[in-house]
């Protein structure tokens, strides 16, 4: 198994929904990864579509950067509809 890369598996659970990460597995090639993902992750109708991607092709953000990346959004309350006060007379917007 030394040469078999790790694949991350993404499943679309229902038509119309996004593919979502469900786990990972080793396979010799992408086709085998799909077949194995089908056997392991969709035995009880969990999916209608599978994506696999070699794990080493994924670039991820650094957890140490979390503050710098995500905190600036916290004080931008004007990005949310609740920031805007509307007259009571207005029933729908």
């Amino acid at each position, binding site marked *: *198994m030394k040469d078999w890369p790790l694949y991350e598996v993404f499943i679309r659970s229902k038509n119309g929904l996004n593919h979502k990460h469900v786990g*990972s597995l080793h396979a010799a090639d992408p086709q085998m990864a799909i077949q194995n993902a089908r056997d392991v992750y969709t*035995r009880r109708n969990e999916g209608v579509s599978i994506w696999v991607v070699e794990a080493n092709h994924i670039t991820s953000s650094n957890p140490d950067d979390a503050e710098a990346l995500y905190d600036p959004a916290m004080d931008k309350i004007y990005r949310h509809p609740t920031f805007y006060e509307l007259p009571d007379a207005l029933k729908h917007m």
Partner: protein
Amino acid sequence: MSTHSLEDRFQSRVDNEEKIEPRDWMPDAYRKTLVRQISQHAHSEIVGMLPEGNWITRAPSLKRKLALLAKIQDEAGHGLYLYSAAETLGVSRDEMLDQLHTGKAKYSSIFNYPTLTWADIGAIGWLVDGAAIMNQVPLCRASYGPYARAMVRVCKEESFHQRQGYDILLTMCQGSEEQKEMVQDAVNRWWWPSLMMFGPNDDASPNSAQSLKWKIKRFSNDELRQKFVDATVPQAEILGIQLPDPLLQYNEARGHYDFGPIDWEEFFQVVAGNGPCNKERLAARVKAHEEGAWVREAATAYAEKQKNKVVSSASVA
């Protein structure tokens, strides 16, 4: 940041029920504990297929055979989810398999007992999967994200396993006297080893406190064992069989069942490799791995060939 304050920050994240993810800082001992626990758990799922696999070809009906096959296939999946979770901590699949095959790694000692009759398949589903569920449900809230998520998936699949086993016993208990005796015999043999699945008593389990603090564990061994006994006694009554413990009795004051002492000498003997089937189980795993080598090699060769094809057709274009 000093290691000390890193550790404080880590612990306060755990205290706040935040999940720890693979790339987050974690104490070395936390990582080591998880690698050991998750890989042992994975090995148990894989070796756990063997005692039941013994009965696939002799299942009494097609319906039973299909259910048993599906159950065993689930266990293979559980092994895979758990190996994958362990790999996120930096240990490779090969390393783990190697540890199993060389006898360095442990797996749940329950799987070193033989499956002598069809009733054993029922008893395993009912008691062994039942005990596993009791252990596994709290692990769905383990502090390490990949482990917790793997356990959610495992637990979703487990409940059918226990019902499948109970259904076998229920049917046999409604059958002939001989069938009922077979059930009683199987339960007599599986009851005590099932109680041992929760591990040594709390006062003999030195690492438990740390695991509780790290929120890898949520309940102590004895707490889980008690929950299991309390849940199982009424199920035995419905089957109409005796659990093999003369001291088993409801304790009004505690609100729990009291039960007799566990033979820990037997437990440690089996853990040390001297159970009835330790050698057989390990030999079966090694044989399967070795005899599968040519398939893995062929798949690798095929993948290589396909890749080269893509490259050469791309260079033509």
